[in-house]
C-alpha cells in the first residue's frame, strides 16, 4: 500500500486537507478575535457550519462527476483549488 505512489499522493493530499480544516476549526475563533471582530462565537459557528454544509452538499456532486467522467485528476484539482 505504502509503495504505491498514486495512493501516497491521495493520502498526503487528504491528510493535508483534513489537517488544515481541523486546525482552522480549532483556531477560527481566536483568529477572528485577533482581527478585532466582536461576538466571534456566532461568526465562528457560521464559518464552520458553512464549510461543513458546503462539504456535505458538494459530496454527491463530486461523486456524480467522478462516476460520469472518470476524470480523477481533474476533480482532485478542482477540490484543491482553494489552496492556490
Amino acid at each position, binding site marked *: 500500500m505504502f509503495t504505491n505512489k498514486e495512493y501516497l499522493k491521495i493520502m498526503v493530499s487528504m491528510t493535508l486537507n483534513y489537517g488544515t480544516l*481541523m486546525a482552522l*476549526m*480549532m*483556531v*477560527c*475563533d*481566536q483568529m477572528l*478575535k485577533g482581527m478585532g471582530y*466582536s*461576538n*466571534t*462565537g*456566532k*461568526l*465562528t*459557528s*457560521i464559518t*464552520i*457550519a458553512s464549510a*461543513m*454544509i458546503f*462539504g*456535505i452538499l458538494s*459530496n454527491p456532486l463530486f461523486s456524480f462527476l467522478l462516476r460520469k467522467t472518470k476524470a480523477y485528476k481533474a476533480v482532485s484539482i478542482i477540490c484543491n483549488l482553494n489552496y492556490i
Partner: protein
Amino acid sequence: MILIVYISAALVNSLPVHTFSSINSIVEDVFQISQLNVTLNALLFTIAHPIFAFPWNWVLNKYGIRPGFIAGGVLLIIGVWLRLLLQVGNSTYCLIGSALAAIGNIFILNTPSKVAINWFSAERVPIVTFTGILSTLISLTVGASVPGFLIDSHSTPDDIRKFLFIEACVITVPIVLLIIFFKEKPKNPPSKTAKIIFHE
C-alpha cells in the same frame, strides 16, 4: 430498527469534538483557563484518532461490533459527563473527560461499513455506509455550530455548564439505546460477504 438506533448514535457521537471551538475565547475568559487548555479539548480527538483507530479496529474485528459499541459508548458517556466538572481556573477533569470521549468516539466512528455489511444486502451497503458517514459529518457540524449561537460573551460559567449538561443528555440517550438494542448480526446473513464474515 437497527439502522435508526445506529444512525441516531452516529448523529450524536461527534457532538463533543468541537464543543469549545466556536466559543474558545469566551470559555477562556469566563473560566480563566489558558487558550491551549481550551483548544486541547478539540485537539485530543484529533490526537486520539490516529493512535487508537488501528487497535480499536482490531478489537472490533476480533470481538465484534456490539462489545465495541458498549466499550466506546461507556467511555463516551463518562467523558461527556466528566466535562461538566469544568471549573473556574481548573480544566483538568474537563480534559480527562474529553480524552475519554475521544477514545470512545472512535469505536462508533469506524463502524458504518461494518454495520452495513453485517445487516444489509450488498445493494444497500453503499447507501447505509454513506448515511453513517453523513451522520458523523452532520454531528460535527451541529456540535461545532450550536455553541456559538447559545453562548455569548455575557454568559456565565453556569450558562456554559448548563449547555454542557444539555449536550451530555442529548449524547447519553441515543448511546444508551445503542448499547441496549444493537445486536451483533441477524440470524440469516443478508449477503455472501456477510456469510463469509459470520463463518470466520
